[in-house]
Each structure stands twice: as C-alpha cells, then as structure tokens.
C-alpha cells in the first residue's frame, strides 16, 4: 500500500462528501485510519440540491464540500457578497477552495445577506454554516 499525502487528502474529501465519519484500511501489515472531526450531514448525497436549512432567522447557506472558504477571489478587489447586499437565487456568494480548484457556493434563495458566519481563509467542513440570507 503506497498512499501519498494527496491520496489521503482525497480519501478524506470523499468521506466528507459521502457522509461517512471515517474509514480504516488494512493491507500487508499496514493500517490507515481516517476519522473525520466534522459531523457528517446525513441523508444528503453529493448530488442533492444546495445544503441549506431554513429557519425563522433566514436561510443558512452551508458548505457542500470541505475546503478553505474564499469570500473574495484572490484576483478581485471585492468580495462576492457583503453584509446587507441583495442576492438572487443562484448568485455566487463565495467559493470553497479544494486542492487546486474553487467550487462555487450559489445562493439558495433571493433576499439579502444578514449574516456572514465564517472568515475568508477559514477551513470549513461539509455542512459548516457560511452565510444567512433573509
């Protein structure tokens, strides 16, 4: 079993996305155990619609993928959204950086940004609340 750090990273991402808490692999006397600290959001497959929760406080946008939260593209001056900004459903409200890619966080609803719950550059897991829209 020759696993690189990258393979382990990928395994961890796959676990997060599949909603599993961890995995143990044993082969030729070597053992690899990955345990995820973020609680998996059960019942949501990777291909389900945006991971959202609606409460009286508004619609909370949650991360669909584990990675680094990117509130502003490093090449652009302005963040995707600012507090109080009106957004429409589907509008890009941020990115999650995973490896060398940026996955989009689209707004699940039309409304205005009432809360930004994480700072740019923060490591987030599957289901981490990011923004509240009302």
């Amino acid at each position, binding site marked *: 079993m020759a696993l690189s750090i990258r393979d382990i990273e990928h395994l961890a991402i796959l676990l997060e996305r599949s909603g599993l808490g961890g995995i143990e692999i044993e082969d030729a006397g070597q053992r690899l155990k990955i345990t995820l600290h973020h609680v998996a959001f059960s019942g949501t497959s*990777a291909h389900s619609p945006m991971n959202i929760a609606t409460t009286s406080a508004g619609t909370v946008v949650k991360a669909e993928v584990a990675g680094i939260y990117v509130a502003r593209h490093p090449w652009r001056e302005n963040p995707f959204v600012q507090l109080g900004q009106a957004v429409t459903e589907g509008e890009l409200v941020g990115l999650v950086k995973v490896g060398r890619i940026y996955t989009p966080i689209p707004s699940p609803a039309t409304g205005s940004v009432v809360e930004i719950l994480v700072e740019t550059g923060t490591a987030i897991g599957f289901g981490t609340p990011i923004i509240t829209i009302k």
Partner: protein
Amino acid sequence: MLGPASVQDLGRVGQYRFGVGTSGAMDDIALRAGNILLGNDENAAGVEIAFAPFKLRFNADAAFALTGADGGAELNGRLLPPWWRACAHAGDILVLKAMSRGARSYLTVAGGIDVPLVLGSRSTQLRGEFGGFHGRALQPGDILPCDRSESPDDAGELGAEPADIALRQRTLASGARRIRVIIAGEYDRYDEAARQLFWHTDWRVTPQSNRYGYRLEGPPVQPIVPIEKRSHGIVPGVIQIPPNGQPIIQLRDAQTSGGYPKFATVVEADLWRIGQAGLGSRLRFEPISHQEALAAQAEVSVYLERLRASVRLQGEL
C-alpha cells in the same frame, strides 16, 4: 495591443525542417487549465484573446472556460470569476470587458474549437496563412465550429487556481516580472559590464511586441565586437540582441531560425509569464542552470497534475 484573437492549441511540433514554427498558445498553462476544467484533451484548440472588449455569442448550449488574464468576463451581464468554467445557452452573450492580471485570456469550449488539423495542429500559422480559423486572426462575424460530439450535459460551474497564484514568484521591489533564463551561445561574447547591464535592467515591453516576439527597451547591450552569424535554428524564448543593443524575445510565431547573437533563452516554465506580460510592463532576467530549469518545469507539471486530480475528483463526486 499585443495582437488579435486567434485559434491556438499547444502548437505545431516536429515541422521545423520545413521552416514551420510551433505557433500555439502564448500561455500554454492557461490553455491546458481551461481544457482540464472542461475534461477536454489538453491540446484541444481554444481562442487566444489579446485585447478587450471582446464579445461573443453562443449559437448553441455549451460548457466553456475562461483562463489566463482576467478579462472581467460577463455572461449575459453576470460577472464571472477568473479561471472559471460555466455553461452557456444558445443566444447567451459573453463579453470580456478589460484585461487585468495578464495580457491574454483563453476561451476553451467542451470538445474544443473544431478547425481542421493542418500539419498536426489546429494552431493558427499567421505567417504561413494556414491552420486555425482559415489561417488568419479572428474577425467580427466569424462563426467558430465546436466539436459537440463529447460535450458533457451540464458540468456545472467550477474554478481553477490561477497559475500566477500557484506558481507565485517572489516579487521584485521595482515591480518588474522575474523571468528565468539559461545563457545562450553568444553570452561569452559580451564583457562583464554588458552582462551586468543586461541582468540589472528592468526591460520595458515596447509596442512592437506580439506573438512573433517581444521587442524590449533599455540601455543598449553591445558585444565586445560585432557578431554576424550564419542562420541557425531558434526556439520560442530565445533572446537575441540585434546591433541596436535592444533585446528581442522570439516567441510562438517567431521565425524558426535567425542569425542575431543570442544572449539567453527564457526557460520553458516561464514562457507563459512572457505571454501574460502586457505592453509597458517590465521584465527582469535571472540566469539559472539547466537543472534548475528542469526543476522549474517540474513545478509546472505538479501544478497541472494537482489541478487534473482536483477536477477529476470533483467530477467523480
């Protein structure tokens, strides 16, 4: 303006013996990244855009990507992030409003721009007037054929980390771009003062710069005695110094041979940085060894491999 828009792939290799140069994307990494985002063959042809505003209408639904310089692209008025894959519907309008963070943007489409292969490549041979779109730069009204046979249905939006960030270079206090080179054949024919002048000058990219070559401006660099050489093969990246002492970096559409003395050659790993250097920007050259140049190229390979892996993984989920 560094030139028009043209169809380019990674270049037409193996045709030097007929006097045919490579052509190909000035920023090969950006073209590859766009194709990786779309799941295309990395050598699929895209459109190299060296000016803005640039406007395009999709005649059919298509996944596309924009990489390279940030064109501040808008799809039907919606601002897209740089290095971004998106899907357009028939009738959608894509506009690149202004170039920043580089000089050339690359538009790639799922399946690639479907122009005929000529001598093994889809790149435009501007001098020879063949390849690409009818052997010429694009003009308003042109309709680009796209290979629709392997287009994914709806891949969704996705971004790639720009090469400029992943392969970041330490910045110089003067703001000049740092370009790594390997010294070339006639380096020994310049005295120490001329060499120091070359290495310590922030060379300005003049308006006479395009896909053929970049003509630079700075204090004249002269050899100990004038050099007149027999014509020999050259490759993109060779820095020649004609008798006026002002260096020329030969690039993708350059002549395949020349006789002006060669001071150095830009390493393969930094050619894309030249392609992204706009008019008026400044370049500072730094000599490295052959081994260091291979290591630099390996870094590029690692970046692309990680990008491929990230995109593949995302696609599997």
